[in-house]
């Protein structure tokens, strides 16, 4: 009798313990990954509430969240998000649309790459922000100059990464394709293009980061709408919680863009160890 109960108990225990262990494992992994971030946010909240840090500069998180909610509910921040997304999205799309084809082309033709490289390096080293006044003179203070300055800065990472990817394609694979009688076009489509995809993604992620960076700078300098403008404007008007709300939105935008690209990269480069 006693033996039986012990046995059933022993039999029943493992699933529960297993489930418990599973939850514990997930919790531990989550804590290891996000624990420091949570600790930081908690310290901010407590520090601001109890006055360990200056609450006028670092308002408690709950006040920032309220400001964020009010901004979103009233639609004011939604407008800013929309215009910011439009500016950076347009510039990013244009940079990708020009940078990838041009990079693929330039990487294939060494003479052209050699001829264009010095001027590309020169343009790349000239800060896009330093050129912003020039773009304003050329295109006016409206949307065009903002989109163009973001486009300008975003173009180089994607262009150079694509050229690099094409140039680094294993010549031995190209030769292999040649022995089967592959034409230049077939080699490009079936060997060069897929081999360049991982470096193109490195460029895309760099470009996305650059697009957001330049967006904020351009909006801070000469805009009356947009998240970058909102950060500046809230600070001038001493609406510090609103300022942080806009900053958090910008951070979220960057994280989202990166996550989308990482997802896409995983799908397209399943064969590679790199991801």
């Amino acid at each position: 009798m006693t033996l039986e109960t012990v046995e059933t108990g022993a039999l029943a225990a493992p699933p529960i313990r297993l489930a418990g262990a599973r939850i514990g494992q997930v919790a531990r992994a989550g804590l290891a990954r996000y624990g420091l971030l949570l600790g930081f946010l908690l310290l901010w909240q407590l520090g601001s509430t109890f006055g360990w840090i200056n609450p006028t500069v670092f308002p408690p998180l709950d006040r920032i969240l309220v400001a964020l909610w009010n901004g979103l509910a009233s639609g004011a921040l939604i407008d800013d998000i929309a215009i910011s997304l439009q500016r950076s999205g347009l510039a990013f799309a244009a940079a990708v649309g020009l940078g990838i084809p041009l990079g693929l082309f330039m990487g294939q033709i060494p003479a052209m790459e050699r001829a264009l490289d010095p001027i590309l390096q020169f343009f790349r080293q000239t800060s896009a922000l330093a050129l912003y006044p020039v773009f304003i003179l050329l295109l006016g203070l409206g949307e065009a100059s903002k989109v163009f300055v973001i486009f300008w800065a975003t173009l180089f990472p994607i262009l150079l990464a694509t050229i690099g990817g094409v140039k680094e394609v294993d010549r031995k694979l190209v030769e292999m394709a040649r022995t089967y009688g592959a034409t230049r076009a077939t080699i490009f489509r079936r060997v060069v293009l897929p081999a360049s995809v991982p470096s193109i993604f490195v460029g895309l992620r760099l470009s996305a980061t650059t697009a957001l960076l330049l967006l904020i700078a351009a909006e801070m300098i000469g805009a009356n709408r947009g998240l970058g403008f909102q950060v500046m404007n809230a600070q001038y008007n001493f609406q510090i919680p609103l300022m942080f709300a806009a900053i958090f939105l910008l951070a979220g935008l960057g994280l989202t863009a990166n996550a989308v690209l990482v997802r896409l990269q995983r799908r397209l480069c399943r064969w590679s160890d790199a991801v």
Partner: protein
Amino acid sequence: MTTATTTVRRGEVTIRDLSKSFTLNGRRLDVLRGIHLDVASGEALAIVGPSGCGKTTLLRVLAGLEEPDRGEVMIDGAPVHGIGRQRAVIFQEPRLLPWLTVTQNVSFGLEVRGQDRASAAEKARHYIRLVGLAGFEDAYPRQLSGGMAQRVGIARALTVQPEILLLDEPLGALDAMTKLTMQEELARIWREEGVTMILVTHDLEEAIFLADRVLVMSKSGHPPRPIEIDVPRPRDRSAPSFVALRRRLMAEFGLH
């Protein structure tokens, strides 16, 4: 009568007065000088020699990857230039496309030559079985061992059903055990497929094991010397005739 001759001449290689030189640091380097060679249909020829004797260059000329300075290469009696459908090359490295599965890699050659995807894949599956990789059709190259990857490369070359298989030190990068198994496999595949096989190797035992004839090339510019391998197949590496031939070949290179 004419049809009879063409079938007999499938995969026949004739090399006449072939020369090739390279310029290295401003100095002219005669790699191949006036080579004459006849390879019969279905023959297995091994080319051996010290590094720098031009054996790989000879194979690359045969593959159409290099143009000779002088002389010509004829296949089935017709002069050839550049890459052609009668030949397939197996390199020292498997040279697989990492983004394609085993089946897709093996079909690659056929697809490049214009065959539709479905029939290419079907043919690929047959050769994947032939090289002993059944069950790995959907694996990616990074999941394969060196020997398995090389089998994929061999299957890819066989799938296009070449008359002539050109092998450039195909087992050079494999470990000793895998190498022995793969030599057996190559002997079997050559017998079953009935192709002409020209194999460059620096492994004398491999040359004797696989070839009907071994061509010994030297750096000094002496014309290459063919040695008949009249050891009955399947070959036994420890048979007296095999050992005697190995000793003779080693003596050619001043090794004892």
